[in-house]
């Protein structure tokens, strides 16, 4: 690359900066910027780094709580106290655009990035989870993306040795060409060993550690802040290659280094690489920083300062080390065969100064790049599609002639059927902490040397959010919380990944605002503060924007893992109980999409007060050892939930007989496949039933006896009339094999 002689309007535009923003830069510098400085401003002020469109809206999130040790936004990831002197560090991040261009490396580097965010805080990463969205499996391009993304996550996670313990995958037309790849990483750290992403203390040394710098990922942050077009595949330099082996060395060396006490602060060189890591750490420390980029290890010849500053080569970190302790740090990195070069010092003048040898190539006030970056409140308008989409005329929907056939079809839908093909490609057991294998309501890992276990669930229903972003946002939180409750964990806090279209479109920004409001109110009610997260805008393809898709990652805590509760039925003769009494809705359901090809109506209503009581009740029942299983009623409705309870333990399939009462005027399709909030299916020994009833009554939560566990069939009757009667082995086979069959086409 050659440096242009003069910065003209074209160059400013290419950097995604508006005329007003350019004027603001001139004001901050009190002069014209040079090309390197322009590059630095453009990435620091990009949506990806500055959150300029979302910042004001995100203020609606509750962020305080009694066990929140580091509040959202203060560090790279949230920190939650779990007792025993330990804390959990967790965060979720998207890598949607890179995965659309090169699915394998895009997903792999997404995993690498979020892991670095966790261990640079001093925590040992103990689990990964992923939330994936693709176009229909029937579409060859979507299958290609699915294979690549899953392969990439497996490649990186397996190699570095952090188990991918669960997640969720959903297929819908709206994600065609713009898949969503959201990865959550969670680590555990001793409370007194948390490392901040701060550069402070004048004279302390700034180290560059890890891979050498190439031209890859040049300007990736601004790339993520643009829509995908047919030309996007030509954005080659933005593709980065992941090196999990290098990152494993970085991880071990970093944790070893932290134990020596010489580290002041550190940050991953993620989006906007060397620029953002130096600027952000200096900003948090209210310091300045001076670096000499002639010392930066390079992989390619002839790189200009602009390229070095904006490169997004992977597996690099910035480490601030106490002065006079540099040799100690070097020794550890050498042991692990890692590049570690002192490139500069922390200063006290609040200026970010970049030199190449003796020549100053950039000099910018730190705060102008961070705190003083532009912030926008975008225009909002209720989308026009909503009126039509919300209007679902039930009478126009024909009743299915053969309800059992419908059951089989929904059971084999890629959104419902087993995701074994995906999770068996992930090493989900390394670390020997996984005490609930993937494929259930939550992932659960025990914490060694304590009795505790951590439960995590990822949730977010794009269809619901498309039809009602506010309710959809609420539901994402409630459902994620319910999922951790079902394994016996108390919900503590959330992280999130907010995936939307282009924020300058008022309808998109309205969806975004409503979703955030929904998440915020649910988090407040359920007392699970937001510890951080990530916003991904510009998720559009030539056909339009994706369905608004906020993904919530819920952290739950089990105090004694011997009380872990699993979702499957266990014993012949156990009673089956429906806890909770939400209003069923067919709007936005899998049934409506799968059978009638409609994305219409309204999602089920969620009453947060009831939800909270339901969760409290369920937790109390589990903690008292009264129930043998708990599984929440979710996608696919009651019939699918019951089927799952029968087959989730493939080592011991077990049938059930269910008698449903008549609900006034309720259609059979709604009864079986209508989706609902605040309902959980439990099973228990008959002698425990009276105690369960008592506790439910005390908490004013409705409870219905549905039937009994046992036999080789799942039989669902309504007032004696058999609606579904199917052999459990057959149900299991259909559910287990459907997705694989479609993928292997």
């Amino acid at each position: 690359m050659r440096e242009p002689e003069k910065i003209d309007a074209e160059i400013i535009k290419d950097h995604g900066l508006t005329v007003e923003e350019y004027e603001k830069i001139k004001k901050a510098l009190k002069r014209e910027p040079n090309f390197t400085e322009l590059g630095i401003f453009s990435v620091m002020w990009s949506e990806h780094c500055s959150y300029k469109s979302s910042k004001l809206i995100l203020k609606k999130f509750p962020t305080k709580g009694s066990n929140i040790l580091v509040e959202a936004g203060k560090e790279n990831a949230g920190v939650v106290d779990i007792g025993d002197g330990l804390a959990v560090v967790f965060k979720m991040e998207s890598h949607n655009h890179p995965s659309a261009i090169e699915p394998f490396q895009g997903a792999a580097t997404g995993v690498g990035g979020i892991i670095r965010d966790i261990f640079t805080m001093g925590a040992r990463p103990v689990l990964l989870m992923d939330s994936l969205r693709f176009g229909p499996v029937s579409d060859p391009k979507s299958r290609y993306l699915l294979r690549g993304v899953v392969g990439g996550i497996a490649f990186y996670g397996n190699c570095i040795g952090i188990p991918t313990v669960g997640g969720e995958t959903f297929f819908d037309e709206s994600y065609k060409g713009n898949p969503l790849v959201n990865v959550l990483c969670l680590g555990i750290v001793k409370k007194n060993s948390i490392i901040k992403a701060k550069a402070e203390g004048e004279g302390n040394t700034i180290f560059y550690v890890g891979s050498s710098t190439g031209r890859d990922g040049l300007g990736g942050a601004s790339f993520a802040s643009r829509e995908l077009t047919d030309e996007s595949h030509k954005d080659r330099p933005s593709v980065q290659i992941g090196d999990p082996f290098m990152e494993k060395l970085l991880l071990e060396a970093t944790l070893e280094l932290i134990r020596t006490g010489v580290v002041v602060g550190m940050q991953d060189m993620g989006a906007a690489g060397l620029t953002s890591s130096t600027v952000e750490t200096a900003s948090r420390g209210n310091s300045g920083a001076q670096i000499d980029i002639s010392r930066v290890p390079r992989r390619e010849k002839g790189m200009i300062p602009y390229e070095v500053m904006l490169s997004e080569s992977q597996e690099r970190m910035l480490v601030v080390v106490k002065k006079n302790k540099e040799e100690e740090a070097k020794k550890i990195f050498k042991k692990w065969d890692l590049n570690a070069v002192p490139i500069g010092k922390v200063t006290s003048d609040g200026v970010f100064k970049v030199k190449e040898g003796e020549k100053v190539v950039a000099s910018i006030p730190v705060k102008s790049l961070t705190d003083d970056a532009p912030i926008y409140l975008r225009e909002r308008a209720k989308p026009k599609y909503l009126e039509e989409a919300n209007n679902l005329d039930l009478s126009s929907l024909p009743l299915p002639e053969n309800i059992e056939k419908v059951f089989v079809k929904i059971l084999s839908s890629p959104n419902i059927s087993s995701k074994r093909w995906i999770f068996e490609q992930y090493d989900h057991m390394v670390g020997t902490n996984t005490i609930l294998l993937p494929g259930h309501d939550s992932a659960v890992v025990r914490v060694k040397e304590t009795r505790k276990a951590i439960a995590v669930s990822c949730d977010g229903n794009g269809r619901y959010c498309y039809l009602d972003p506010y309710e959809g946002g609420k539901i994402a939180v409630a459902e994620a919380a319910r999922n951790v409750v079902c394994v016996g964990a108390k919900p503590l806090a959330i992280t999130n990944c907010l995936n939307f279209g282009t924020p300058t479109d008022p309808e998109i920004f309205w969806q975004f605002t409503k979703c955030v409001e929904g998440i915020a109110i649910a988090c407040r009610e359920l007392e699970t503060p937001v510890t951080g997260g990530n916003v991904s805008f510009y998720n559009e393809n030539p056909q339009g924007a994706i369905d608004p898709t906020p993904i919530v990652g819920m952290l739950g805590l089990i105090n004694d893992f011997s009380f872990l509760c699993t979702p499957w039925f266990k014993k012949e003769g156990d009673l089956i109980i429906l806890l909770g009494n939400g209003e069923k809705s067919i709007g936005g359901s899998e049934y409506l999409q799968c059978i009638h090809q409609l994305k219409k109506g309204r999602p089920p209503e969620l009453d947060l007060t009831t939800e909270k009581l339901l969760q409290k009740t369920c937790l109390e029942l589990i903690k008292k050892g009264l129930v043998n299983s708990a599984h929440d009623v979710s996608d696919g409705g009651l019939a699918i939930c019951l089927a799952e309870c029968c087959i989730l333990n493939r080592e011991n399939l077990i049938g059930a007989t269910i008698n449903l009462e008549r609900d006034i005027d309720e259609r059979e399709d709604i009864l079986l496949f209508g989706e609902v909030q605040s309902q959980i299916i439990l099973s228990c020994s008959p002698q425990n039933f009276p105690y369960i009833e008592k506790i439910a009554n005390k908490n004013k939560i409705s409870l219905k006896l549905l039937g009994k566990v046992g036999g080789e069939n799942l039989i669902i009757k309504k007032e004696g009339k058999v609606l579904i009667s199917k052999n459990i082995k057959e149900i299991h086979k259909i559910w287990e094999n459907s997705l694989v069959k479609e993928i292997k086409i």
Partner: protein
Amino acid sequence: MKFGVVIFPGSNCDYDCWWAIKQVTGERVDFIWHKEKNIENFDCIVLPGGFSYGDYLRTGAIARFSPVMRKIKEFAQRGGLVIGICNGFQILLEAGLLPGAMRKNKNLLFVCKYTYLRVENCSTPFTRLFKRGQILRMPIAHFEGNYYTDQDVLSKLKKNNQIIFRYCNRKGEITEEDNPNGSLEAIAGICNKEKNILGMMPHPERCSEAILGSEDGKIIWESIVESLKDRNRGKK
């Protein structure tokens, strides 16, 4: 009695092995850095799973050149017990301490799941507390566990009872369907002629505690302890 768990750059089951052996046996377990040249005081060496050197050339191909490997060869020649699990098994193959090689899994995907194993030989130091034909439930997690060797070597393995574990179904039958990676004759683990070096793809350290869903792996650690106790008695 002292176990040693080797750490290569990229090992990732090192700590898991350390933890499992400690939990099960209560014996002393130390880590051995791959550049270490002195392993005199160990009684059993564990080569753990992982992706040594990223598995970037071939699995195990670079790790076999680590300084510690020469010492491990000498240790094994003296009769010391060596167990290689997953990547550790691959390293033993590359180093020529066990015969054969690994190909990519038959489905060309990484596979992580529980499998059933049949114990084919229970008169080794690693399997002496099993019963012959005993069926175990043990997880695998690998991309390249599709064992291969030529007919000559295979018949030698059979003749000398060097095949220790085979993949099978719940009833102990060997079927195509229950062979998770396409391994020759469903081989999951083999040992050398002298029976002091064991290589296996399944992970005993991942099923050594009830909370993890299976305790079948425990018996391997317990067998090793029994064997070492016998040996030490002999010495005295």
